């Protein structure tokens, strides 16, 4: 019985629609057309999972998240979080969700310690509890040496980590994190994921994560929804999504200068390749890929080759294969 409840859905979204009205042009600048930022979104997030929203800029990730945190009222559809109807009671979101937005302006002039403590107090903790949690979280994230510094004086990644610390003070069953690791160095990033994992293991915390970093998405997410123009175009585990593109392998070739088109094997690859300067990208079946690599590394073409890589499909390939190729691919960060 308990196990069934534990595996239960934490968040159910049905038919969510949000349209931003057209803006009038002002002083010669053209107006913008009406934007359907959420266009019939259905979503289920299960307890204890790290669920990702992946998509290029402007795909509607933040609009969706704002509706899930009670910041934005949807035009249509329903949002149910842990049994609460957030469309009817948006104010309950604050008592269920710890939210890390993209902006830190409300905390910028506070010290790291005061930002965490104040946020904890505003989450309903008493003074003593807020201070104890503040110290624990700052220690956990390695921020104790920076506790007395104002956020404004920190680097972008450190500031982001301090805001993340503030998000963690005052336990919540659900964390909604909008690009939590943007600008962070690897140490800080590891601290973030370790903290998330600990809360997941100890309290079954559910995490909804907005990202456009595909590498991170592949490594930390249990399931991912790919957004494109306000719609979810795919939703599965990263591995499941990758199966969508079959067993294609990506071959990247970097030539020293011009591609040696006089070599017949290279000329044969030329048609299938997407060329960007000296770099060719090919998507091939494994056997073809092996043959291609053998051809360019074995024969006369090798002299012209600077570098090559052979990779299994990434979420970026999935995204491209799903048809998100319209100006979108550049929105995804590969780092």
């Amino acid at each position, binding site marked *: 019985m308990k196990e069934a409840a534990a595996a239960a859905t934490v968040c159910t979204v049905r038919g969510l629609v949000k349209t931003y009205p057209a803006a009038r042009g002002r002083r010669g600048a053209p107006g913008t057309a009406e934007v359907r930022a959420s266009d019939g979104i259905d979503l289920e997030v299960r307890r204890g999972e790290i669920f990702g929203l992946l998509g290029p800029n402007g795909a509607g990730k933040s609009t969706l998240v704002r509706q899930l945190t009670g910041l934005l009222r949807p035009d249509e559809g329903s949002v149910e979080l842990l049994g609460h109807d957030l469309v009817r009671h948006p104010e309950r979101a604050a008592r269920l969700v710890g939210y890390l937005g993209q902006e830190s302006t*409300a905390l910028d002039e506070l010290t790291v310690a005061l930002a965490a403590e104040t946020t904890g107090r505003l989450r309903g903790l008493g003074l003593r509890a807020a201070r104890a949690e503040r110290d624990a979280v700052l220690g956990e994230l390695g921020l104790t040496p920076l506790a007395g510094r104002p956020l404004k004086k920190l680097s972008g990644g450190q500031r982001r980590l301090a805001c993340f610390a503030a998000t963690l003070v005052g336990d919540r069953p659900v964390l909604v994190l909008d690009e939590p690791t943007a600008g962070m160095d690897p140490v800080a990033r590891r601290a973030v994921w370790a903290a998330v994992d600990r809360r997941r293991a100890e309290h079954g915390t559910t995490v909804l994560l907005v990202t456009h970093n595909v590498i991170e998405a592949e490594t930390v997410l249990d399931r991912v929804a790919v957004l494109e123009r306000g719609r979810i175009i795919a939703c599965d585990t990263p591995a499941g999504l990758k199966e969508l593109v079959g067993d294609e392998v990506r071959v990247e070739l970097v030539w020293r200068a011009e591609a040696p088109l006089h070599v017949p094997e290279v000329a044969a690859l030329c048609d299938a390749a997407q060329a960007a300067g000296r770099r060719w990208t090919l998507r091939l079946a494994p056997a073809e890929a092996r043959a291609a690599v053998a051809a360019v590394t074995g024969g006369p073409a090798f002299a012209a080759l600077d570098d090559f890589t052979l990779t299994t499909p990434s979420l970026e390939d999935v995204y491209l294969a799903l048809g998100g190729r319209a100006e979108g691919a550049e929105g995804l960060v590969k780092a």
Partner: protein
Amino acid sequence: MSAVSAEAVTAGAVRSGGDTRPRSGGDGAAPLAPRAKLLPALAAVYRAQLSRARVARIPLLFVATFQSVGIMIMMRGVVDGGAEARAVVAGSSVLVVAFVALNLLAQYFGQLRASGGLDHYATLPVPPAAVVLGAAGAYASFTVPGTAVTAVVGSALFGLPMGHLWVLAAVVPLSGAALAGLGAALGLLAPRQELATLCGQLGMSAALLLGVLPAAHMPAPIAYARDLLPSTYGVEALARSFDARPDWAVVAADLGVCAAVGVVSLAAATWAYRRAAVR
């Protein structure tokens, strides 16, 4: 600060309707974490804002004080004693409050709203009144040293009695509440950040011109505008306290107007916050 706490207490009474216990919202719904109660949340916001102000606002407070002292020195050449001198000193002192509470607070809330910083508060279970009153209270408190310095320097400059300057203890919080509420409401209601800044500046200019210049020589429409400005009643109360035997009933009436405007404008600011936070 009686206007602020009066507002706080009423709002607290309304909100503490047993809503702070964890509770379920229906079948199988998860318990909700407790809401932050009004007074502790207010204290937390106040403390955070005061620490912000300490870092970021001290230079501006110097500007505000020097501005007021400069105006008094300038007016020293035009005015010599009597009712006019009282008006100048009282107006310059209250101007410090207008600069910080009205102008700077309007800018702060305008900027917070434009940059998405309000989301931080809107995703915490904190009563809107706590955010508005905490910020307004911190800005109003921050005007205390500047106002006191200006009043003392002005009294010395124009040879006015300082015996009743304790009335500042009521003038600063009450006119502070009125002007901070107005500033917060302007900042939160202005459709764009620049407009919030503009409104704050204009409000301060109005407080400067209508407060410092002696009222006796004003044309009728301007005198009406002066009566509409909440800072005027703070100025009047302070000016009357320079009399040898002040009419305390009239002083109290003036301060009562400030308090009433403070309650109304802070309530309006709270409403504006609620409107700005959830779109």
